[in-house]
């Protein structure tokens, strides 16, 4: 699925991030290629979410450069930054839906802010996005507090997709979902990525989802990228942490034979 031309949409070079007095990332370099799904793993507290949040611009960095869609975010002015902002969508771990707005208004929020379309088209697009993530249009009128965990994730994905972004950040998209819903969600991400051609940056702990969905996997540890590549490469790696992670008790034996291709 990774397209032939390996043009990076996100280019991270020598990124250093401190959290209070503690160095979380120490020289991370990473490329997200156009149209690929990059899975991101690492021990809890290794800085996976920190890296994602730093790229999105929610956390300050100490050193290094981040280029998104060819724009260096440090040097970009407000207008350019806003233009980049609307070309990515972010799915937060807990959904982060605006609890005082209905589902429909949540999805319409970025559309209204950025595109200023007619009310009719705005509503139609919001409903279309809802249906795209596998929800009934009736959910449009519900409030986030009335939804189940899986539905919240789907609505949050619909909101992340509202502006047809080129890059999608997913922070543990399948955590807290039952295996069937998690499998559905993986499938959903896969079809959306195929039909819309989105590049996906996915932080996850879900081995199944890594295996099914991701084109490449990056492993973060000791503040650096330990290994990056396909599932085969991960399985073949001699690094003790990777060995424990991919060959541990929760890994499936059949992976060694069938690897996504």
């Amino acid at each position, binding site marked *: 699925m990774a397209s032939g031309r390996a043009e990076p949409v996100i280019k991270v070079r020598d990124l250093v991030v401190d959290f209070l007095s503690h160095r979380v990332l120490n020289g991370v370099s990473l490329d997200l290629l156009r149209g690929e799904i990059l899975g991101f793993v690492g021990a809890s507290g290794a800085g996976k979410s920190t890296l994602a949040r730093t790229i999105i611009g929610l956390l300050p960095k100490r050193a290094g450069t981040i280029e998104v869609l060819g724009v260096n975010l440090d040097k970009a002015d407000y207008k350019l930054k806003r233009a980049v902002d609307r070309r990515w969508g972010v799915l937060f771990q807990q959904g982060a839906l605006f609890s005082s707005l209905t589902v429909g208004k949540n999805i319409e929020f970025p559309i209204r802010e950025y595109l200023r379309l007619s009310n009719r*088209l705005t509503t139609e*697009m919001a*409903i*279309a996005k809802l249906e795209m993530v596998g929800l009934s249009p*009736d959910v449009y*009128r519900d409030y986030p*507090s009335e939804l189940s965990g899986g539905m919240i994730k789907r609505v949050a994905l619909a909101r992340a997709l509202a502006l047809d972004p080129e890059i999608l950040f997913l922070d543990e998209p399948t955590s807290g979902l039952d295996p069937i819903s998690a499998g559905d969600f993986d499938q959903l991400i896969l079809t959306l990525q195929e039909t819309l051609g989105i590049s996906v940056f996915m932080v996850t702990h879900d081995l199944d989802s890594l295996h099914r969905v991701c084109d490449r996997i990056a492993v973060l540890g000791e503040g650096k990228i330990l290994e990056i590549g396909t599932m085969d490469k991960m399985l073949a790696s001699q690094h003790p942490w990777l060995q424990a992670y991919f060959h541990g008790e929760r890994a499936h034996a059949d992976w060694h034979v069938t690897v996504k291709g």
Partner: protein
Amino acid sequence: MTAGTLLSQARGEGLALAAAGSWTAEHARTLEPLINAVTRRKRPVRFVAIDLARIERLDTYGAWLFERALRTWNSQGCETRIVGLAANYRGLFDKVRASTQEMTPQPRRPNSIIATLESVGRTMTAVAADITLLVQMTGALIVAFSRVLVRPHTFRFKSMVNHLERVAWNAVPIILLMTLLIGAILAQQGIFHFRRFGADIYVIDMVGVLVLREIGVVLVCIMVAGRSGSAYTAELGSMKMREEIDALRTMGFDPVEVLVLPRIVALIIAVPILTFLGSMSALYGGGLVSWFYGGIDPTVFISRLHDAVSVQSFEVGMIKAPFMAIIIGLVACVEGLQVQGSAESLGTKTTDSVVKSIFLVIVIDGFFAVFFATLGI
């Protein structure tokens, strides 16, 4: 990237459309009128062919606009055809085509008179429900309190002391400042008006009685309701939102005993202390203004105050304080435990808590006034 264009050509009863450029979200604002223009043509059409071969970029917005046009024509019994759609956009088109846009119709709104009546009715039942909840909480509190009386070691003493620090100790500076100013303003206004008929000395009577009997306690309670009542509601509300209260329940703890009782006991201790400090501060403020503005010597002020107020008027003020504290605490905790999932509900309940407790403080003050008047105090 150039915005999309749409060329239309009528051929008898048919219509040929050729789209080009980028049909994406950022141009959707200009693309929608193009689609509207061709679908709202006066002349009926039987066949429509859309050529998408020259489209540079397409996303769900563009695809939906085409799909919408196709649906309009199809519903008019018109034959439609799409040609030249690039293979990589086929999946996108199918995804958009799968959108049904069908919502179950909402129940019809009743007319405005019925709606008004309904809202009045709902408000009345809400008031009744509020009173019930308040009574229930009082009951639960009494039960928790008697349980603690039987087994004193179960009382959350540390939690109570922690709340006491926040609602009493930390509130002292602002309470002292506010009451000082109010005492000063009372004295200034009194002197200004009483001076006209040479009665400035009676300002001391007015300030003394008013502060000790009414103003001191009511003002302090209003500030406590705004400062600590709102904090209680917000704390309990966010605990409710994050299921912390449910967690307590499942572990076999009574939230009223663990969370509500220490808070209300802290208020019952705090409000009388704050009332006393506030009253003294108000008298001090009144004294300062009488001295500097009214020219009444402090010794005169003190001896006059001694004659004007009795211990009884001080007692009348102080006896009200714990009752006010209970009301503020009860309302704050009831509202906090009613918070639902949304951020908005937390805000509404906090506002409700402050408004209702201030209202009830004044109502109770009125009851006490009637009560003491009947007793002739």
